[in-house]
């Protein structure tokens, strides 16, 4: 069916994976410094959104180091811990940065611009994930009244939010580098075709 491609593509993929792993190793080492700031940004952006969604206001969000704690208002000036998001909840920052740094065929400026856009997009997705998780948990526990459709499909929404959280770094990376990969893939195909024609011309395949 298909002819196996030359080693050029394989080398490119291996190089991509190697750079990814190297960047991941560095970022894992730095995670304890990155995570508190990132969690504070997520909590800061999620706070007004949660207040917007709740009437009357039922939640208090607090970034505690790299963790985000959600408290529920249970009485006048009284709150009780409801749930928390641990320091690894927003780990997707690491693979997303590593994927972008490892992508071949991007110049420095383009790479930097994409890194900025990617982190911004991931931050917004994480804010949405946090808000949706909390509000869906309230609905699942019967703390927030919901309509019959949402009540029937609550499990599916929770799984969908989880899938989005899981897929976010790869989805953002694909959207930002699709054109680059197309060019790289096309270049590799052209190279292979030229190799194939030249080997046929000198009679290697005979």
């Amino acid at each position, binding site marked *: 069916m298909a002819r196996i491609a030359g080693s050029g593509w394989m080398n490119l993929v291996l190089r991509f994976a190697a750079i990814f792993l190297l960047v991941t190793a560095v970022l894992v080492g730095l995670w304890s410094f990155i995570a508190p700031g990132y969690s504070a940004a997520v909590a800061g952006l999620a706070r007004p959104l949660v207040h917007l969604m709740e009437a009357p206001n039922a939640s208090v969000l607090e970034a505690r180091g790299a963790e985000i704690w959600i408290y529920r208002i249970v009485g006048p000036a009284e709150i009780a811990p409801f749930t928390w998001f641990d320091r690894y909840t927003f780990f997707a920052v690491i693979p997303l940065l*590593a994927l972008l740094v490892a992508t071949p065929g991007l110049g420095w400026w383009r790479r930097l611009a994409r890194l900025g856009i990617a982190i911004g997009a991931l931050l917004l997705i994480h804010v949405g994930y946090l808000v949706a998780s909390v509000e869906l948990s309230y609905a699942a526990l019967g703390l927030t009244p919901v309509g019959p459709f949402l009540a029937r499909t609550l499990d599916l929404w929770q799984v969908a939010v989880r899938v989005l959280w899981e897929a976010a770094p790869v989805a953002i990376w694909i959207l930002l580098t699709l054109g680059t990969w197309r060019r790289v*893939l096309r270049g590799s195909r052209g190279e292979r075709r030229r190799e194939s024609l030249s080997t046929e011309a000198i009679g290697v395949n005979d």
Partner: protein
Amino acid sequence: MVDSRKRCLKSLPYRRVWLPVLGAACMAALLIWIAGDEPVMGAVQRGLARVTSGTLNLLGHRTVVAGSTVSSGLFGITVVTACTGLFTTGLFLIAVIAYPTGWKPKLIGAGLGLAGVFLLNVVRLVSLYYIGVHLPGFLDAAHQLIWQSVLIVFAVALWLLWAGRWAHAPRRV
């Protein structure tokens, strides 16, 4: 007028673009359904726990399986939905289905993804058991940061390899 409309509809790249997109959307819906179905997920978790325990026992450990928990006198791990590799496999399959290529390369891609992610996931669970026994302080970082990233790059690299080698190989003239 009608002829030109028919011609226009025929020229739409529905086979190359819309069918793969529809297939990918169906795969995403299937993924969400499977992840939300407790009997199916329970069976997957128990199966994976048995394979992990079997591998550890082959390596000289004495582990037992209770439900989806693998344990020995030293350490125990519970296989939950996120540990099954379901999301990584599902996303890999969505990417394979969405890629505009023939059915044969797509089947090769699906086989590669299912087998590859499953095998790496078993390696991951076995390694987490070892880390839990020998370096328990490192377990959280290995579980949440390192292995999640390794699974992602493995799936992406496998997909790129498939796209370059099987899905996009030049035809012989």
